[in-house]
């Protein structure tokens, strides 16, 4: 369409290609390949939050439930049925999808702050399942399992750390392309319209609940892939992967990298994962730094790094997908009563 956007596409493509050489570059500067894998798989999981938060405007504070289900899906299928690498990945992803099918119908009922509350609460159920059913999941101690060999077409090989990176990299590239196509599709554009003004979308004759439901399922797939990869990377699954603290990390990364942008989750994951790794090797008090980091990001970089730079550069381009940080909150829709005298029809923000 316009020049700046096609330049963006070229830059994005170049970035994706360059990431293919990240392990080699990482070795030069003494960065473990597995850390780079962690960045990419975390970025895939953060894309899920980005879809919900940046494009639909939902407070996605429960995606760790899907992420953890991905990891446990892979873990349990390997530990109990000795499945291959690809099958384990698929089982993890499907487990996340099924989990979403169970809780999403409850989340759809509310918006805004109540959506966040419901998502946190319902997300936590999987944490307690993993925690309590220790004869299956190992409980608090988690469960370790071997990384199975990869059988894909003519390819039969065991997966070392470099192999793990390339699997993660391939899925990251695939996820990025899928997300890029998704937000430009009629479906994605409608999601973005819901973020800006859900009431108007309903008065265009669309059942927004249905869109949000599918949006949550798509987010669950992304989270599940990320989680299954994480399990396979660590060869370990543990209940904290399902905890709301993990969800909060993903949200922070998304905000930090810039919500509603294609490469925001990658940037956020890069800063977060590397930062956490470096800080935790320097000081045992990393949690204070991490918490402080949250506070500084919220008070100092509300639009994230990509958003702040993007604001400076591309203010005039009327890009429909470069979303702002604010989600609308139409907590009462359709059949619900509202006090008289409240102006309706405009995107409302909570005071």
């Amino acid at each position, binding site marked *: 369409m316009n020049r700046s956007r096609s330049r963006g596409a070229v830059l994005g493509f170049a970035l994706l290609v360059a990431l293919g050489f990240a392990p080699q570059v990482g070795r030069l500067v003494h960065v473990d390949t597995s850390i780079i894998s962690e960045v990419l798989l975390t970025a895939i999981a953060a894309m899920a939050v980005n879809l919900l938060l940046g494009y639909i405007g939902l407070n996605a504070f429960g995606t760790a439930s899907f992420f953890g289900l991905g990891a446990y899906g892979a873990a349990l299928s390997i530990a109990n049925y000795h499945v291959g690498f690809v099958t384990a990945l698929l089982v993890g992803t499907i487990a996340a999808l099924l989990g979403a099918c169970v809780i999403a119908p409850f989340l759809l009922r509310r918006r805004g702050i109540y959506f966040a509350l419901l998502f946190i609460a319902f997300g936590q159920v999987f944490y307690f399942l993993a925690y309590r059913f220790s004869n299956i999941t190992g409980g608090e101690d988690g469960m370790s399992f071997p990384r199975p060999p990869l059988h894909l077409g003519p390819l039969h090989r065991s997966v070392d750390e470099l192999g793990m990176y390339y699997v993660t990299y391939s899925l990251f590239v695939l996820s990025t392309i899928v997300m890029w196509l998704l937000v430009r599709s*009629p479906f994605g554009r409608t999601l973005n319209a819901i973020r800006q*003004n859900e009431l108007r979308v309903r008065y265009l004759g669309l059942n927004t609940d249905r869109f949000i439901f599918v949006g949550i399922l798509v987010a669950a797939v992304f989270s599940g892939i990320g989680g299954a990869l994480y399990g396979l990377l660590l060869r370990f699954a543990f209940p904290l992967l399902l905890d709301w603290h993990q969800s909060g990390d993903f949200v922070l990364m998304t905000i930090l990298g810039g919500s509603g942008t294609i490469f925001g989750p990658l940037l956020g994951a890069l800063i977060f994962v590397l930062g956490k790794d470096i800080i935790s090797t320097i000081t045992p008090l990393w949690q204070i730094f991490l918490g402080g980091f949250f506070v500084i990001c919220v008070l100092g970089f509300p639009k994230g790094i990509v958003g702040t730079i993007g604001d400076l550069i591309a203010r005039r381009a009327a890009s429909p997908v470069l979303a702002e940080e604010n989600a609308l909150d139409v907590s009462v829709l*359709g*059949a619900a009563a509202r006090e*008289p005298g409240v102006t309706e029809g*405009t*995107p409302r923000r909570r005071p």
Partner: protein
Amino acid sequence: MSDVVLEALNISKFFGGVRAVDDVSLRVKRGSIHAVIGPNGAGKTTFFNALSGFYFPDSGTVRFNGADVTRELNWKRVARGIGRTFQTPSVFPELSVHHNLLIGTQAERGIAFHFSLPGRTQHREIEERIDELLGFVNLGNVKHRLVAELSHGSQRLVEIAVSLSTNPQLVLLDEPMAGLAEADTVRVVNVIRDLRDRLGLTVLFVEHNMRVVLSLSHYVTVMNRGRILAEGTPQAIAANSVVREAYLGSEVIANV
């Protein structure tokens, strides 16, 4: 087809102990421009919201083309042919005018749920439809501007165009002139008139601006304190002493 598009029978709506709308009935004739007027707090917007499914009335019946839609969800009513606007223009502020209309046109074509882009032919049809809608409200010159950057009047016209994108038979306009400058009022009045004259639609609107109401509408319903005070032709309403009394002190009607 019956000549009544929308029929409201004995609509009541309470908020706590307050009777915002109390036993109000109304018929909107096909192809008419019908105004609902009344002082602040008369229950006009509440009544309107009950008609459009923003919320459900506590009692009463709403029929559209003969079908009972009283408890039908708002998004389902749109498919039957009801479109509406709000007091504050309800649009997608961060999108261009073009994309605002694209969202509506996608919805109307039934492809809003598609994960793939429309084919070449369909894409051209959609773009033609968008241009047609833009031409109708005379906004072709700001097609690629962000809606948030437009004047209030232009945003109002974008909202009307977006509402039209779903091909309604009946358009409900909630105070379309609210907050508009004089020049913008003229633009919007002309578009509302065209809704009926050029597109053959039926219009029901809530309005404060008495001059607009009297010049535009074929039929006027006056509400006061949640009830209907009077109804009739604009001329009859302007001459009605009860209405004049309710509006006592209002300079607009005094000048008519």
